[in-house]
Protein backbone atom coordinates (compact mmCIF):
# COMPACT_ATOMS: atom_id res chain seq x y z
CA UNK A 1 0.00 0.00 0.00
CA UNK A 2 1.46 3.34 -1.14
CA UNK A 3 0.44 5.19 1.97
CA UNK A 4 2.05 2.61 4.28
CA UNK A 5 5.40 2.79 2.49
CA UNK A 6 5.22 6.58 2.61
CA UNK A 7 4.55 6.53 6.34
CA UNK A 8 7.28 4.02 7.14
CA UNK A 9 9.82 6.38 5.60
CA UNK A 10 9.49 8.68 8.64
CA UNK A 11 12.15 8.37 11.33
CA UNK A 12 10.70 6.70 14.40
CA UNK A 13 11.27 8.33 17.79
CA UNK A 14 9.92 7.39 21.18
CA UNK A 15 6.79 9.23 22.34
CA UNK A 16 7.52 12.17 24.58
CA UNK A 17 5.49 13.14 27.62
CA UNK A 18 4.65 16.87 27.96
CA UNK A 19 7.78 18.70 29.01
CA UNK A 20 7.64 20.96 32.07
CA UNK A 21 8.09 24.05 29.92
CA UNK A 22 5.15 22.97 27.75
CA UNK A 23 2.73 23.24 30.69
CA UNK A 24 1.34 26.74 30.43
CA UNK A 25 2.25 28.42 33.75
CA UNK A 26 -0.42 31.08 33.28
CA UNK A 27 -3.10 28.42 32.91
CA UNK A 28 -1.87 26.55 35.98
CA UNK A 29 -1.80 29.77 37.96
CA UNK A 30 -5.29 30.73 36.81
CA UNK A 31 -6.57 27.27 37.69
CA UNK A 32 -5.14 27.56 41.22
CA UNK A 33 -6.60 31.04 41.52
CA UNK A 34 -10.07 29.91 40.44
CA UNK A 35 -9.94 26.91 42.74
CA UNK A 36 -8.86 29.04 45.71
CA UNK A 37 -11.49 31.68 44.96
CA UNK A 38 -14.24 29.06 44.85
CA UNK A 39 -12.94 27.60 48.12
CA UNK A 40 -12.94 31.05 49.76
CA UNK A 41 -16.48 31.56 48.41
CA UNK A 42 -17.68 28.32 50.01
CA UNK A 43 -16.09 29.13 53.37
CA UNK A 44 -17.51 32.65 53.31
CA UNK A 45 -20.99 31.39 52.34
CA UNK A 46 -20.96 28.95 55.26
CA UNK A 47 -19.72 31.69 57.59
CA UNK A 48 -22.55 34.00 56.47
CA UNK A 49 -25.15 31.26 56.94
CA UNK A 50 -24.01 30.86 60.55
CA UNK A 51 -23.13 34.43 61.51
CA UNK A 52 -25.09 36.83 59.31
CA UNK A 53 -27.40 37.98 62.09
CA UNK A 54 -24.52 38.70 64.43
CA UNK A 55 -22.67 40.93 61.98
CA UNK A 56 -23.05 44.69 61.80
CA UNK A 57 -25.18 46.05 58.99
CA UNK A 58 -22.33 47.60 57.01
CA UNK A 59 -19.98 44.65 57.53
CA UNK A 60 -22.67 42.24 56.34
CA UNK A 61 -23.44 44.28 53.23
CA UNK A 62 -19.77 44.67 52.36
CA UNK A 63 -19.28 40.92 52.76
CA UNK A 64 -22.38 40.24 50.67
CA UNK A 65 -21.13 42.42 47.81
CA UNK A 66 -17.83 40.54 47.89
CA UNK A 67 -19.32 37.09 48.35
CA UNK A 68 -22.35 37.26 46.08
CA UNK A 69 -21.33 39.75 43.39
CA UNK A 70 -17.58 40.30 42.99
CA UNK A 71 -16.27 36.83 43.82
CA UNK A 72 -18.83 34.99 41.62
CA UNK A 73 -18.11 37.31 38.67
CA UNK A 74 -14.40 36.66 39.09
CA UNK A 75 -14.91 32.90 39.46
CA UNK A 76 -17.22 32.74 36.43
CA UNK A 77 -14.67 34.57 34.26
CA UNK A 78 -11.67 32.58 35.49
CA UNK A 79 -13.54 29.27 35.53
CA UNK A 80 -14.63 29.66 31.92
CA UNK A 81 -11.19 30.76 30.72
CA UNK A 82 -9.52 27.82 32.49
CA UNK A 83 -12.26 25.39 31.50
CA UNK A 84 -12.14 26.31 27.82
CA UNK A 85 -8.36 25.92 27.81
CA UNK A 86 -8.57 22.59 29.64
CA UNK A 87 -11.22 21.49 27.17
CA UNK A 88 -8.52 21.33 24.49
CA UNK A 89 -6.61 18.61 26.35
CA UNK A 90 -6.68 15.01 25.19
CA UNK A 91 -7.75 13.91 28.70
CA UNK A 92 -10.75 16.20 28.49
CA UNK A 93 -11.83 14.75 25.13
CA UNK A 94 -11.40 11.24 26.49
CA UNK A 95 -13.61 12.01 29.50
CA UNK A 96 -16.67 11.99 27.21
CA UNK A 97 -15.53 10.24 24.03
CA UNK A 98 -15.07 6.95 25.84
CA UNK A 99 -15.23 4.88 22.69
CA UNK A 100 -12.20 6.70 21.34
CA UNK A 101 -9.91 5.40 24.08
CA UNK A 102 -8.42 3.02 21.53
CA UNK A 103 -7.61 5.97 19.24
CA UNK A 104 -5.65 7.62 22.06
CA UNK A 105 -3.84 4.40 22.97
CA UNK A 106 -2.90 3.99 19.33
CA UNK A 107 -1.73 7.60 19.12
CA UNK A 108 0.62 7.02 22.04
CA UNK A 109 1.81 3.64 20.74
CA UNK A 110 5.49 4.00 19.70
CA UNK A 111 5.08 1.33 17.03
CA UNK A 112 1.90 2.63 15.44
CA UNK A 113 2.10 4.03 11.93
CA UNK A 114 -1.23 5.85 11.91
CA UNK A 115 -1.29 9.56 11.13
CA UNK A 116 -2.31 10.44 14.69
CA UNK A 117 0.61 8.43 16.13
CA UNK A 118 3.10 10.00 13.73
CA UNK A 119 1.93 13.50 14.59
CA UNK A 120 2.18 12.68 18.29
CA UNK A 121 5.50 10.86 18.17
CA UNK A 122 7.28 13.35 15.95
CA UNK A 123 5.81 16.23 17.92
CA UNK A 124 4.28 17.82 14.84
CA UNK A 125 1.34 18.34 17.10
CA UNK A 126 2.97 18.53 20.53
CA UNK A 127 -0.12 19.15 22.62
CA UNK A 128 -3.93 19.14 22.48
CA UNK A 129 -3.74 16.58 19.67
CA UNK A 130 -7.49 15.84 19.35
CA UNK A 131 -8.33 19.52 19.32
CA UNK A 132 -5.54 20.43 16.89
CA UNK A 133 -6.95 18.24 14.12
CA UNK A 134 -10.68 18.18 14.87
CA UNK A 135 -11.77 21.81 15.07
CA UNK A 136 -12.56 23.66 11.90
CA UNK A 137 -10.18 26.42 11.08
CA UNK A 138 -11.56 29.94 10.98
CA UNK A 139 -13.09 32.58 13.17
CA UNK A 140 -15.87 30.34 14.46
CA UNK A 141 -14.02 27.01 14.42
CA UNK A 142 -13.58 26.85 18.19
CA UNK A 143 -17.13 28.03 18.83
CA UNK A 144 -18.57 25.42 16.46
CA UNK A 145 -16.53 22.70 18.14
CA UNK A 146 -17.77 23.77 21.59
CA UNK A 147 -21.40 23.97 20.47
CA UNK A 148 -21.15 20.52 18.96
CA UNK A 149 -19.49 19.30 22.15
CA UNK A 150 -22.40 20.57 24.28
CA UNK A 151 -24.87 18.90 21.91
CA UNK A 152 -22.95 15.62 22.14
CA UNK A 153 -22.78 15.94 25.92
CA UNK A 154 -26.56 16.13 26.23
CA UNK A 155 -27.05 13.32 23.73
CA UNK A 156 -24.65 11.14 25.67
CA UNK A 157 -26.15 11.74 29.10
CA UNK A 158 -29.74 11.55 27.88
CA UNK A 159 -28.99 8.45 25.80
CA UNK A 160 -30.47 10.02 22.67
CA UNK A 161 -27.56 9.17 20.36
CA UNK A 162 -27.81 6.52 17.67
CA UNK A 163 -25.54 3.64 16.74
CA UNK A 164 -23.19 3.50 14.98
CA UNK A 165 -21.53 6.63 16.37
CA UNK A 166 -20.09 8.59 13.45
CA UNK A 167 -18.37 11.90 12.90
CA UNK A 168 -20.84 14.72 12.36
CA UNK A 169 -19.33 15.55 8.98
CA UNK A 170 -16.64 13.79 6.91
CA UNK A 171 -13.12 14.86 7.77
CA UNK A 172 -12.23 17.75 5.47
CA UNK A 173 -8.89 18.64 3.93
CA UNK A 174 -9.09 22.12 5.46
CA UNK A 175 -8.21 20.53 8.83
CA UNK A 176 -4.91 19.28 7.35
CA UNK A 177 -4.26 22.37 5.28
CA UNK A 178 -4.54 24.73 8.23
CA UNK A 179 -1.00 23.54 9.09
CA UNK A 180 0.30 21.96 5.89
CA UNK A 181 -0.79 24.57 3.36
CA UNK A 182 2.19 26.25 1.72
CA UNK A 183 4.70 23.98 3.46
CA UNK A 184 7.63 22.88 1.23
CA UNK A 185 6.48 19.25 1.44
CA UNK A 186 3.11 20.16 0.03
CA UNK A 187 3.90 22.74 -2.61
CA UNK A 188 7.38 21.34 -3.44
CA UNK A 189 6.16 17.86 -4.27
CA UNK A 190 5.27 17.22 -7.91
CA UNK A 191 2.42 14.90 -6.87
CA UNK A 192 0.93 17.56 -4.66
CA UNK A 193 1.52 20.35 -7.19
CA UNK A 194 -0.48 18.49 -9.80
CA UNK A 195 -3.30 17.63 -7.45
CA UNK A 196 -3.37 20.89 -5.47
CA UNK A 197 -6.63 22.22 -6.97
CA UNK A 198 -8.39 18.90 -6.20
CA UNK A 199 -6.87 18.83 -2.70
CA UNK A 200 -8.04 22.35 -1.97
CA UNK A 201 -11.51 21.67 -3.30
CA UNK A 202 -11.76 18.44 -1.33
CA UNK A 203 -12.21 16.36 -4.47
CA UNK A 204 -9.11 14.43 -3.46
CA UNK A 205 -8.93 13.64 0.24
CA UNK A 206 -5.56 13.84 2.07
CA UNK A 207 -6.58 10.83 4.13
CA UNK A 208 -6.99 8.68 1.01
CA UNK A 209 -3.20 8.68 0.42
CA UNK A 210 -1.86 9.46 3.91
CA UNK A 211 -4.25 7.45 6.04
CA UNK A 212 -5.15 5.70 8.16
CA UNK A 213 -5.65 8.45 10.71
CA UNK A 214 -6.52 6.14 13.61
CA UNK A 215 -6.09 2.50 14.54
CA UNK A 216 -9.61 1.38 13.67
CA UNK A 217 -9.08 2.36 10.08
CA UNK A 218 -6.10 0.00 9.63
CA UNK A 219 -6.95 -2.75 7.19
CA UNK A 220 -10.20 -1.12 6.04
Amino acid at each position, binding site marked *: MASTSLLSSFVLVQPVAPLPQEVDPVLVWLQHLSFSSALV*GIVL*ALFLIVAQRRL*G*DNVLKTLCIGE*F*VLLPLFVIAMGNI*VGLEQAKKVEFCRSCHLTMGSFIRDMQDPNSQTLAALHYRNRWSPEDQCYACHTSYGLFGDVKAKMKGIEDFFKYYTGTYEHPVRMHTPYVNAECLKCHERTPKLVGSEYHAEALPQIRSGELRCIDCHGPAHAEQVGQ
Partner: protein
Amino acid sequence: MRIHSPGKKPFAVSRWLRVCQVLTLTGFLLTLNSMWHTTGLSFALFTAAGTPLLLLSAILVVVLLIDDLRKRHSLFDLEVYAAGEMIFAQDDPADRVYIIQQGHVEVVRTFEGKEIVLARLGPGDYFGEMAFFVSDGRRTASVRASSPLELLALGKENFARLVHALPAAYKEFSTKALQRSKQQDP
Protein backbone atom coordinates in the same frame (compact mmCIF):
# COMPACT_ATOMS: atom_id res chain seq x y z
CA MET B 1 -44.81 60.19 48.72
CA ARG B 2 -46.40 57.03 50.04
CA ILE B 3 -45.54 53.60 48.77
CA HIS B 4 -48.09 50.94 49.49
CA SER B 5 -46.15 47.75 50.10
CA PRO B 6 -46.42 44.57 52.10
CA GLY B 7 -44.20 44.36 55.17
CA LYS B 8 -40.55 43.70 54.34
CA LYS B 9 -37.84 42.08 56.35
CA PRO B 10 -34.53 43.84 56.99
CA PHE B 11 -31.58 42.81 54.83
CA ALA B 12 -29.90 40.51 57.36
CA VAL B 13 -33.02 38.41 57.96
CA SER B 14 -34.35 38.42 54.41
CA ARG B 15 -35.40 35.01 53.15
CA TRP B 16 -33.99 35.94 49.76
CA LEU B 17 -30.53 36.29 51.28
CA ARG B 18 -30.78 32.63 52.32
CA VAL B 19 -31.78 31.75 48.76
CA CYS B 20 -28.71 33.62 47.47
CA GLN B 21 -26.49 31.73 49.91
CA VAL B 22 -27.77 28.37 48.70
CA LEU B 23 -27.44 29.39 45.03
CA THR B 24 -23.92 30.72 45.53
CA LEU B 25 -22.82 27.73 47.56
CA THR B 26 -24.04 25.36 44.83
CA GLY B 27 -22.36 27.48 42.15
CA PHE B 28 -19.05 27.53 44.00
CA LEU B 29 -19.19 23.77 44.63
CA LEU B 30 -19.70 23.16 40.90
CA THR B 31 -16.79 25.52 40.16
CA LEU B 32 -14.57 23.68 42.64
CA ASN B 33 -15.50 20.38 41.05
CA SER B 34 -14.68 21.70 37.58
CA MET B 35 -11.37 23.25 38.65
CA TRP B 36 -10.33 20.16 40.63
CA HIS B 37 -10.70 17.86 37.66
CA THR B 38 -11.92 19.33 34.39
CA THR B 39 -13.90 16.69 32.51
CA GLY B 40 -16.72 17.02 30.02
CA LEU B 41 -19.30 16.47 32.76
CA SER B 42 -17.76 18.76 35.40
CA PHE B 43 -17.19 21.61 32.93
CA ALA B 44 -20.66 21.26 31.41
CA LEU B 45 -22.18 21.37 34.92
CA PHE B 46 -20.14 24.49 35.70
CA THR B 47 -21.15 26.31 32.51
CA ALA B 48 -24.76 25.12 32.29
CA ALA B 49 -25.66 25.20 36.00
CA GLY B 50 -22.91 26.83 38.11
CA THR B 51 -22.56 30.00 36.05
CA PRO B 52 -26.34 30.76 35.84
CA LEU B 53 -26.74 30.07 39.58
CA LEU B 54 -23.91 32.44 40.50
CA LEU B 55 -25.24 35.13 38.14
CA LEU B 56 -28.78 34.75 39.47
CA SER B 57 -27.51 35.07 43.02
CA ALA B 58 -25.47 38.18 42.12
CA ILE B 59 -28.53 39.82 40.55
CA LEU B 60 -30.71 38.91 43.56
CA VAL B 61 -28.23 40.40 46.02
CA VAL B 62 -27.95 43.62 44.02
CA VAL B 63 -31.76 43.89 44.00
CA LEU B 64 -31.85 43.20 47.77
CA LEU B 65 -29.19 45.83 48.43
CA ILE B 66 -31.00 48.44 46.34
CA ASP B 67 -34.27 47.60 48.08
CA ASP B 68 -32.56 47.88 51.45
CA LEU B 69 -31.06 51.24 50.52
CA ARG B 70 -34.49 52.47 49.47
CA LYS B 71 -36.02 51.30 52.75
CA ARG B 72 -33.30 52.87 54.88
CA HIS B 73 -33.94 56.21 53.22
CA SER B 74 -37.70 55.84 52.88
CA LEU B 75 -39.96 58.52 54.19
CA PHE B 76 -43.04 56.83 55.50
CA ASP B 77 -43.56 53.69 53.51
CA LEU B 78 -47.01 52.27 54.12
CA GLU B 79 -46.63 48.64 55.18
CA VAL B 80 -49.51 46.22 55.45
CA TYR B 81 -49.58 43.13 57.69
CA ALA B 82 -52.16 40.45 58.34
CA ALA B 83 -53.23 39.56 61.88
CA GLY B 84 -50.65 37.31 63.55
CA GLU B 85 -47.83 38.32 61.22
CA MET B 86 -44.50 39.21 62.79
CA ILE B 87 -43.26 42.75 62.07
CA PHE B 88 -39.84 42.04 63.53
CA ALA B 89 -38.29 39.59 65.95
CA GLN B 90 -36.25 40.15 69.08
CA ASP B 91 -32.52 40.65 68.27
CA ASP B 92 -33.17 41.35 64.59
CA PRO B 93 -31.11 44.24 63.20
CA ALA B 94 -33.22 47.40 63.12
CA ASP B 95 -33.70 49.58 60.05
CA ARG B 96 -37.02 51.39 60.64
CA VAL B 97 -39.29 53.04 63.15
CA TYR B 98 -43.02 52.37 62.85
CA ILE B 99 -46.09 54.49 63.48
CA ILE B 100 -49.41 52.64 63.67
CA GLN B 101 -52.06 53.93 61.28
CA GLN B 102 -54.67 51.24 61.69
CA GLY B 103 -54.90 48.06 63.73
CA HIS B 104 -53.10 46.84 66.82
CA VAL B 105 -49.83 45.17 67.70
CA GLU B 106 -48.46 43.16 70.60
CA VAL B 107 -44.95 43.75 71.89
CA VAL B 108 -43.64 40.45 73.23
CA ARG B 109 -40.40 39.36 74.78
CA THR B 110 -39.08 35.93 75.63
CA PHE B 111 -37.67 35.32 79.12
CA GLU B 112 -36.30 31.86 79.85
CA GLY B 113 -38.38 30.32 77.08
CA LYS B 114 -41.60 32.01 78.16
CA GLU B 115 -43.26 34.65 76.03
CA ILE B 116 -44.45 37.72 77.91
CA VAL B 117 -46.64 40.41 76.37
CA LEU B 118 -45.07 43.73 77.34
CA ALA B 119 -47.51 46.06 75.66
CA ARG B 120 -50.40 46.39 73.27
CA LEU B 121 -50.25 49.39 70.96
CA GLY B 122 -52.86 50.93 68.69
CA PRO B 123 -53.40 53.76 66.17
CA GLY B 124 -51.19 56.80 66.86
CA ASP B 125 -48.59 54.79 68.84
CA TYR B 126 -45.12 54.16 67.57
CA PHE B 127 -42.54 51.46 68.13
CA GLY B 128 -39.11 50.37 66.93
CA GLU B 129 -37.30 53.45 68.26
CA MET B 130 -35.60 51.63 71.15
CA ALA B 131 -33.08 49.95 68.86
CA PHE B 132 -31.64 53.39 68.09
CA PHE B 133 -31.43 54.66 71.66
CA VAL B 134 -30.88 51.79 74.07
CA SER B 135 -29.88 48.60 72.27
CA ASP B 136 -27.24 49.39 69.67
CA GLY B 137 -29.27 48.69 66.55
CA ARG B 138 -30.96 45.46 67.68
CA ARG B 139 -34.62 44.88 68.40
CA THR B 140 -35.19 44.48 72.12
CA ALA B 141 -38.49 42.67 71.68
CA SER B 142 -40.66 41.08 69.01
CA VAL B 143 -43.70 42.85 67.62
CA ARG B 144 -46.58 41.12 65.87
CA ALA B 145 -49.86 42.28 64.44
CA SER B 146 -52.84 41.34 66.60
CA SER B 147 -55.29 42.56 63.94
CA PRO B 148 -55.05 43.61 60.27
CA LEU B 149 -52.44 46.33 60.40
CA GLU B 150 -51.26 49.39 58.51
CA LEU B 151 -47.99 50.96 59.54
CA LEU B 152 -46.06 54.02 58.47
CA ALA B 153 -42.42 52.97 58.37
CA LEU B 154 -39.74 55.64 58.68
CA GLY B 155 -36.31 54.58 57.39
CA LYS B 156 -33.37 54.52 59.78
CA GLU B 157 -31.44 57.29 57.98
CA ASN B 158 -34.38 59.68 57.90
CA PHE B 159 -35.27 58.87 61.50
CA ALA B 160 -31.70 59.80 62.53
CA ARG B 161 -31.99 63.07 60.59
CA LEU B 162 -35.33 63.84 62.19
CA VAL B 163 -34.15 63.38 65.78
CA HIS B 164 -30.95 65.34 65.15
CA ALA B 165 -32.79 68.21 63.49
CA LEU B 166 -35.59 68.43 66.04
CA PRO B 167 -34.54 68.40 69.70
CA ALA B 168 -38.19 68.01 70.67
CA ALA B 169 -38.45 64.85 68.58
CA TYR B 170 -35.21 63.55 70.07
CA LYS B 171 -36.55 64.16 73.55
CA GLU B 172 -39.86 62.49 72.79
CA PHE B 173 -38.33 59.35 71.25
CA SER B 174 -35.42 58.98 73.70
CA THR B 175 -37.58 59.48 76.77
CA LYS B 176 -40.07 56.92 75.49
CA ALA B 177 -37.27 54.50 74.67
CA LEU B 178 -35.78 54.76 78.16
CA GLN B 179 -39.18 54.45 79.76
CA ARG B 180 -39.96 51.32 77.74
CA SER B 181 -36.50 49.93 78.46
CA LYS B 182 -37.15 50.17 82.20
CA GLN B 183 -40.51 48.44 81.76
CA GLN B 184 -38.88 45.60 79.82
CA ASP B 185 -36.23 44.86 82.45
CA PRO B 186 -37.08 41.61 84.22
